[in-house]
């Protein structure tokens, strides 16, 4: 829980959080840092991101035990922590919850990964600071590092063989006395992705690929940001504008899960984007201010506005009673989010470190297009929290506890089909797909934790409750999901999902070896689950939102060994078990259950300041035999990866870092159980290389 405190501190003084050595993903020898939090949190530095760069930020973070990048096609992926993704975890940028289309299974993060300075991954409930959704954990991306010199900047170029990706990103920043600025621009362009197969079989559909590429998965991206700020001794304020635009194609032979032939000549170019495709634009303005009062009392104010617009276009086709629609706009979502957060941190002699805060959020989502999946809605939520941290009187360590209350209000607008469907009495009508409804949810969450150090040991334990407000799709969906070709029916009676988790971290370290084990046990009394039923509605299999008891447990382990000053070895592993204890699918697991995995890495450094580095790694993933309809069992696999990097000092203030990274060296053809395209048997990427050249100028 104290990670919340930690995060609050990070929000307040972005530059003061200890950056770990580039070589350590998690764990740290800094006892005091570790003891601040009773939860497992991992700091990932910019150096680490650079030297492990493998296409997308989420794929890079996937190397952290317990973190998974769920591939959603088009080279994009979505994060999951300990098997919980989508709306069961939070991605935050500089402490503000990123509001994209996180519910959907076919769109990416909508954040420019090149703008990220460092990442903090919190494993375990983060409800106290983030409110709804922070059940599995929080990935906090920091882009607000304050420049230390008058002028500095980087230019980075990346290339990737998998999809002929080429990207350029430029960042500049400077500080004049207390005033500072930062700006960045990124452009990124990629062609259709390659897979190590010449055909794909789905049921008995046989799809022949052209040049081993997934048709129409090309895309491009344009991002930029500007930040202005004042960093005084007792007062800090900044404002940041950012904009991300991505346009990418969907795999043309199976838009969603329906296999289609089309008159479009996809094969004439691997770089063009034909139908079906999507584009998304995320615009954000956020401001953060901190005032330090007497006696180290600090006050933080965060406000943000986010606009997320997304369109999906596909060839208009008739289905059932829906005639061929006009135009290609299948869906459009236009979501405005306003966020405000206030927190106060008071160090006291007698009562320990006390923090309190309040946040509020308002969302309005509009929709358009001939395909209906989520209704228009407005929602407002507000929460207040209080937490404290007290040093253990007789030992090195801390106890912490916190409590939070949230209220939210969701108003879902009704929606009727734009076409008529015959009714039983021989007439026809515009069928209602979503009824007008208002729901209110209250949630009380809490957390208690302890952290303790003794000799080489650090022990942490935490128990807490977190929650998630049902999303409008879960409450109000009533129609065909053309992407997955099923009929989805919402349930307006759903209650707010609750989760109880107990977790621990056991860490042992000396100068040579560091070892960490993070076990957890998690119970949901009312997990919201989209259950495939045995029934048909309008010709498609009916999937219904239900709530069931779910038990999940697992652990991550990590062993790092420093051999001299030039060698390092690391072993990591993770395991996760999930079971539905009630309902229709009693005895089954949850969808997209991560199989066990283990990986090993050897790193060798040399040159002045260890400026050169070579990394060899192996990643072993077990078979996933525990499945739930409509999944398939997925065999295990092993991949080998390598990367080499070197930093060159070109002058007093100029340096250049070149990195070459290779994934899947043996060109293994394998499936990823958590990939969106697993169901249609699309294999993962074969052997591929990424290269990055980064020029840094620092005054």
């Amino acid at each position, binding site marked *: 829980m104290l990670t919340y405190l930690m995060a609050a501190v990070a929000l307040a003084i972005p530059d003061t959080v200890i950056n770990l050595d580039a070589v350590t993903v998690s764990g740290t020898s800094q006892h005091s840092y570790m003891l601040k939090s009773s939860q497992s949190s991992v700091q990932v530095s910019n150096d680490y991101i650079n030297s492990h760069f493998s296409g997308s930020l989420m794929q890079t973070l996937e190397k952290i035990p317990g973190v998974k990048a769920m591939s959603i096609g088009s080279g994009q992926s979505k994060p999951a922590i300990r098997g919980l993704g989508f709306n069961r975890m939070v991605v935050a940028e500089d402490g503000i919850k990123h509001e994209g289309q996180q519910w959907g299974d076919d769109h990416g993060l909508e954040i420019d990964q090149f703008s990220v300075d460092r990442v903090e991954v919190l494993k375990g409930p983060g409800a106290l600071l983030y409110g709804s959704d922070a059940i599995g954990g929080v990935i906090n991306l920091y882009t607000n590092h304050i420049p230390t010199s008058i002028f500095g900047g980087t230019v980075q170029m990346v290339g990737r063989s998998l999809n002929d990706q080429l990207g350029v990103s430029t960042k500049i920043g400077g500080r004049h006395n207390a005033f500072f600025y930062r700006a960045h621009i990124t452009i990124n362009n990629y062609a259709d992705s390659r897979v190590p197969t010449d055909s794909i079989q789905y049921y*008995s559909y046989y799809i022949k690929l052209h040049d081993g590429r997934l048709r129409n998965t090309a895309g491009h991206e344009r991002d930029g940001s500007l930040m202005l700020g004042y960093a005084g001794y007792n007062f800090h304020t900044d404002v940041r504008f950012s904009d991300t635009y991505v346009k990418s194609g969907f795999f043309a032979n199976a838009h969603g899960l329906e296999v289609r032939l089309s008159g479009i000549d996809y094969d004439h170019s691997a770089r063009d984007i034909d139908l079906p495709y999507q584009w998304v634009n995320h615009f954000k303005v956020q401001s953060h201010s901190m005032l330090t009062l007497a006696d180290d009392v600090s006050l933080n104010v965060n406000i943000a506005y986010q606009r997320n617009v997304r369109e999906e276009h596909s060839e208009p*086709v*008739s289905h059932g009673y829906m005639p061929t629609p006009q135009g290609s706009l299948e869906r459009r979502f236009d979501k405005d989010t306003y966020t405000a957060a206030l927190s106060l941190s008071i160090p006291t002699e007698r009562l320990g470190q006390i923090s309190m805060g309040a946040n509020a959020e308002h969302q309005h989502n509009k929709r358009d297009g001939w395909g209906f999946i989520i209704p228009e809605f407005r929602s407002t939520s507000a929460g207040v929290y209080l937490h404290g941290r007290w040093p253990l009187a007789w030992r090195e360590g801390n106890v912490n506890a916190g409590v939070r209350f949230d209220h939210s209000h969701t108003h879902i607008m009704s929606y009727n089909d734009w076409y008529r469907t015959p009714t039983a009495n021989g007439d026809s009508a515009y069928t209602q797909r979503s009824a007008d409804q208002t729901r209110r949810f209250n949630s009380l969450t809490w957390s208690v934790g302890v952290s303790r150090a003794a000799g080489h040991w650090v022990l942490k334990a935490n128990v807490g409750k977190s929650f998630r407000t049902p999303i409008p799709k879960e409450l109000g969906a009533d129609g065909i999901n053309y992407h997955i070709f099923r009929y989805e029916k919402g349930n307006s009676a759903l209650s707010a999902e609750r989760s109880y988790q107990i977790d621990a971290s*056991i860490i042992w370290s000396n100068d040579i070896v560091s070892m960490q*084990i993070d076990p957890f046990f998690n119970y949901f009394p009312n997990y919201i689950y989209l259950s495939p*039923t045995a029934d048909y509605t*309008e*010709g498609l299999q009916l999937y219904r939102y239900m709530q069931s008891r779910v038990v999940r447990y697992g652990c991550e382990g990590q062993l790092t060994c420093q051999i001299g000053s030039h060698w390092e070895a690391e072993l990591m592993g993770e395991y996760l078990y999930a079971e539905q204890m009630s309902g229709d699918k009693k005895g089954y697991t949850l969808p997209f259950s991560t199989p066990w995995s283990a990986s090993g890495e050897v790193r060798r450094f040399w040159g002045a300041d260890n400026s050169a580095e070579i990394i060899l790694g192996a990643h072993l993933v077990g078979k996933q035999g525990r499945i739930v309809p409509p999944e398939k069992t997925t065999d295990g696999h092993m991949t080998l990866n390598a990367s080499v990097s070197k930093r060159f000092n070109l002058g007093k203030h100029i340096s250049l870092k070149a990195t070459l990274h290779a994934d899947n060296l043996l060109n293994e053809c394998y499936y990823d159980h958590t990939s969106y395209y697993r169901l249609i048997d699309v294999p993962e990427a074969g052997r591929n290389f990424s290269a990055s050249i980064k020029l840094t100028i620092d005054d």
Partner: protein
Amino acid sequence: MKRILTLTIIAAIFSACGNDADDTDTTAPQIADAGEQTCPTDCYECFRGETIEFCYTFTDDTELGSFNIEIHNNFDHHTHSTSSVECEMDGKKTAVNAWIYNQDFSIPSGQTTYTPHITIDIPTDIDTGDYHFMIRLTDKAGWQQLKAMAIKVVSEEG
């Protein structure tokens, strides 16, 4: 000693994993031919105003759920069937009054084998040409099986 203890804990945690002996149903139902009666089959031709005598056998190792029969036009040549048979198709055309048939059927509970006999009337006023005949079948657990066939509706005069 402490190290040994820790390693034992790690070993215990990891060995506790990996038993996936479930008694849950993990197989999809099957759509099988019903011998000589099997109808329709790929490239099947039928006449407006007449009927299709649907006959397939459904099986499941645990319990069958329900099924759906759907017929829609393939005037735009949008997909192929689930079999390797290539049927000769008419040219592409725009639908005027295409046949839409979409019916959900239930299966009596407790069945592991079921052979429905259904008579589908082909309307007299629909467009002739290439159609898709889709069979969708579920079992009680929610697994689904698909079968798609290309059929052709021709006019009464033949």
